[in-house]
């Protein structure tokens, strides 16, 4: 027994010395050709010709000892419709993460410390993750995105049932241009989180105070029911929020203001089958978004204001309602993905083995109150995969549809398409 313990200790020593000499570097690149078809809406009249652009992204991840850094170079509009190559190009160097995470000991107690810029992703949903409290990470984006972390100082303690975390965050360190809404919602604050695992049930309890929301509490619960079914739910109440307020007078723009308390809730169920189908159905509510009557009022006002040259810009201002975390209050999402490799296995099919390299995905986001629809599809083909390097091709498209007076039908893009090639080595 003693001998075995010594053996284990000696191997543990080995990993520590191996860590000291190990530097891991991962490289990713992606290029995306995008098509956007604009349309005139209640908020804006526009040229309807299809716009093309080419974007690029190069990521380097470097892990050394307890350090992780992820740097990106993002080139937007390397080519842009109506311009020569490079004329409209905008290159941004982005520190997505630069963080140190290791054990520290205070007063005889061992803690896991985090210091630096790091993504903190506590959300449990698919279509919307309301517990991504410090910086909302875009879900299911089309084209290329480089998400950034938040400046964080955190201490965690792990026990038999889960983890306690106390942290300070500041979401103001950004390299990418942000909207007025995002800038207004940059926050710094302190909080505590409990993550727990009881049997097959996972829960989170969060309390956080920052200078924008001035206090919030959040919770989540995730459980797996059986082989195929799983449930997830989360909710949050906050004391204040900043959002776009519609004017009480007719000739005035909307304004970004501190508003009162708000709450959000999300519930979802997922199902997967042996034949490779994965389904997720989610509903979420966000009291911060404009409700049905507010959107109808905004559309009616903008339709009137846009006809008068002096008030056209006032009509444009209503489109800022699209910048908020959720466009509408009530949201219903259906997600479907098909694993064709599993399907072939299930069918016992030995034909067209190349089909196993294709993954189709469809998301339907439905607004029950005004019957607006955002439909997105991805078709991903794994072109190369050797273990050392991989290249994927992805054809994606997003359509903004639904009733003509729905909020989604006022988005100035009728549809978007992207052909993306991604590589990793």
């Amino acid at each position, binding site marked *: 027994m003693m001998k075995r313990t010594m053996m284990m200790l000696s191997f543990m020593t080995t990993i520590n010395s191996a860590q000291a000499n190990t530097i891991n570097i991962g490289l990713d690149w992606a290029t995306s050709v995008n098509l956007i078809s604009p349309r005139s809406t209640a908020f804006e009249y526009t040229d309807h010709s299809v716009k093309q652009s080419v974007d690029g992204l190069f990521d380097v991840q470097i892990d050394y000892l*307890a350090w992780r850094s992820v740097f990106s170079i993002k080139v937007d509009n390397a080519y842009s419709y109506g311009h020569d190559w490079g004329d409209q190009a905008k290159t941004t160097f982005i520190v997505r993460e630069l*963080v140190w995470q290791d054990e520290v000991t205070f007063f005889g107690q061992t803690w896991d410390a985090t210091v630096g810029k790091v993504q903190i992703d506590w959300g449990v949903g698919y279509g919307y993750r309301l517990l991504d409290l410090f910086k909302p990470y875009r879900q299911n984006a089309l084209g290329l995105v480089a998400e950034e972390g938040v400046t964080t100082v955190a201490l965690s303690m792990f026990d038999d049932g889960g983890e306690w975390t106390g942290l300070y965050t500041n979401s103001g360190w950004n390299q990418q241009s942000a909207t007025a809404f995002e800038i207004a919602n940059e926050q710094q604050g302190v909080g505590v989180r409990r993550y727990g695992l009881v049997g097959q049930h996972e829960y989170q309890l969060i309390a956080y105070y920052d200078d924008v929301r001035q206090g919030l509490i959040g919770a989540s619960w995730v459980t797996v029911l059986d*082989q195929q079914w799983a449930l*997830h739910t989360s909710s949050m109440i906050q004391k204040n929020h900043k959002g776009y307020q519609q004017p009480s007078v007719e000739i005035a723009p909307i304004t970004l203001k501190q508003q009162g308390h708000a709450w959000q809730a999300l519930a979802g169920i997922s199902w997967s089958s042996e034949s490779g189908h994965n389904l997720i159905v989610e509903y979420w509510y966000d009291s911060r978004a404009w409700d049905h009557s507010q959107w109808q009022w905004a559309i009616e006002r903008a339709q009137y204001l846009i006809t008068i040259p002096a008030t056209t810009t006032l009509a444009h201002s209503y489109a800022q309602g699209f910048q908020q975390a959720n466009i509408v209050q009530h949201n219903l999402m259906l997600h479907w993905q098909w694993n064709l490799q599993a399907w072939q296995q299930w069918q016992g099919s030995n034909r067209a083995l190349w089909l196993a390299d294709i993954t189709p995905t469809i998301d339907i986001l439905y607004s029950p109150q005004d019957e607006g629809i955002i439909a997105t599809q991805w078709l991903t083909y794994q072109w190369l995969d050797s*273990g050392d390097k991989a290249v994927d091709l992805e054809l994606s498209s997003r359509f903004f549809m639904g009733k003509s007076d729905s909020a989604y039908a006022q988005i100035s893009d009728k549809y978007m398409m992207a052909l993306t090639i991604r590589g990793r080595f």
Partner: protein
Amino acid sequence: MFNQHQQQYISHFIKLCVYIGCLFSSLAMANNTFSEPQVQQMLSTADSFRLRDDAAKVVSLVTLYQNNEVDKTRQYNVYTRANRQSLVVFKSAIEAGQKMLMLGDNYWLQMPKTRRPIRITPMQKLLGEASVGDISTLAWRHDYQASWHADEEISDITGKNVAAYQLKLTAVTSGVSYQKINLWVDQVTYFPLKADLYLASGKLAKQAVFSQGQRDGKPAVVAMTLFDSIQQSKKTVIEYQLIVPWLLDDKYYTPSFLSRSNTTDL
């Protein structure tokens, strides 16, 4: 007392009785040779040729072949411990940073460049890269109820004929990749020779053949070759490059710890 003819009859009668006795005895043995504990012991011994310790680090190199040509390779480091708990760290360049945590029948997946452990159902785990389930399961005894089925002579991976026991394994936990397994073990050593692996649908998914070698001077399974029964052009070879006793801190088996960067050097 008996004349010569009578003695011959008696001798033939005794021989006949012995033959019949042997026949019934062997028939009886054929139907009920081993008790359930004996078969489970066989299974435990077979397991020990793959994994001797409750807590261990297993370094596996997986080579996937298509039409006998290398299609892709993968490397996994598996940290397994008691109570069916495993942490799988994906080490190939294109999967670096990916991890899977298995706590009994509960599973989490951590994708590279995210800080988001995703809870997945047992079915979603089965739908993932098939070899993950194969490399993370190194013991049958915790997941399967075994029963003796037959004596057979089979060819091992070198083509040599070996007397084997065929065992039938039925899953007793919900998260396993294969619902039923027909396993052949050496009659003398109980070394695993080959296995037919069946999906929950009853379909024969793969056939596994085990390669014998030496680890720490003792006989051990050094590789497992999986032949795809449905897509017969596919073959997977899993080489166990390193199996050593290893005990990770408890926090590595906490789902929320998955996203921390200092697990990348595991």
